[in-house]
């Protein structure tokens, strides 16, 4: 397996969606190709860091204001077009 072939399969490998034979081939490649091992490992870390980063959490006060605004508009819609 070439490095480029490994990379093409990297997403499936990290997502755990591949047959056992392909997985064994990839892991065989990983065992001797240090570059691909590093790319695989640090890509996995990249995903984990973003997943756990809590970027853009919605603050509770803003959350409450947004929900109140949404629900007020929904109530107006429910009341019918004549009241809009």
């Amino acid at each position, binding site marked *: 397996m070439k*490095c*480029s072939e490994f*990379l*093409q399969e*990297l*997403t*499936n490998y*990290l*997502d*755990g969606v591949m047959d056992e034979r392909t997985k064994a081939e990839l892991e065989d490649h990983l065992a001797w190709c240090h*570059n691909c091992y*590093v*790319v695989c*490992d*640090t*890509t*996995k*870390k*990249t*995903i984990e*860091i*973003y*997943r756990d*980063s809590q*970027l*853009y*959490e*919605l603050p509770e006060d*803003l*959350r409450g204001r*947004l*929900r109140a*605004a*949404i*629900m007020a*508009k*929904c*109530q107006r*819609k*429910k009341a019918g077009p004549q009241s809009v």
Partner: protein
Amino acid sequence: MNAIQPRVGEPVIPEMELVQAAKRGDVAAFEDLVRRYDRNVFRIAQHITQNREDAEDVVQDAFLKAYENLEQFQGQSKFYTWLVRIAVNEALMKLRKRRPERTVSLDEEVKTEDDSLPREVADWSPNPEQQYTQAELRDILTRTIQGLPPGFRTVFVLRDVEGLSTEETAEALDLSIPAVKSRLLRARLQLRERLSRYFQKRESGDGNK
């Protein structure tokens, strides 16, 4: 690797029951749906628009549009996937308004050569994120993901941050499954490479504060 789980609250009432009740005019049931997914919609919107005010507008507009069009939701997909689709479209419209000089589309031309092949491969320090304060790390992660084209950024956020499946992401973005997979690979590799600037092992041994 463990499967990536969506960051949504534990559902108490099944989603479809809430949707059915909301369709019958139960506004409180719709409010439950808002509570269930507002944080997710806000994150997605802010990742796409890169602007807090726009993200606030997108949350309101997306839920209102969902409410107005509930009748059209037939339940073939999850409500959440349908909602994400609405939110992504609203967010892209905001982005286009802000950047009229640039075409913003999920279908934008993306290079198909091996442009994502890693050029230099430097290993990272163990626990690289611990080299930085929380504020520094947040800044690094924000700037790094903002550098990706919207089409890559959106796929990465839906798949890897929000935990949608490949099929759900394809449906939410109106892309084919191969297109989602290809963009996800490129997004992951580009982010990895950009983060390497901050996280790679330092030769002088000062990598671990």
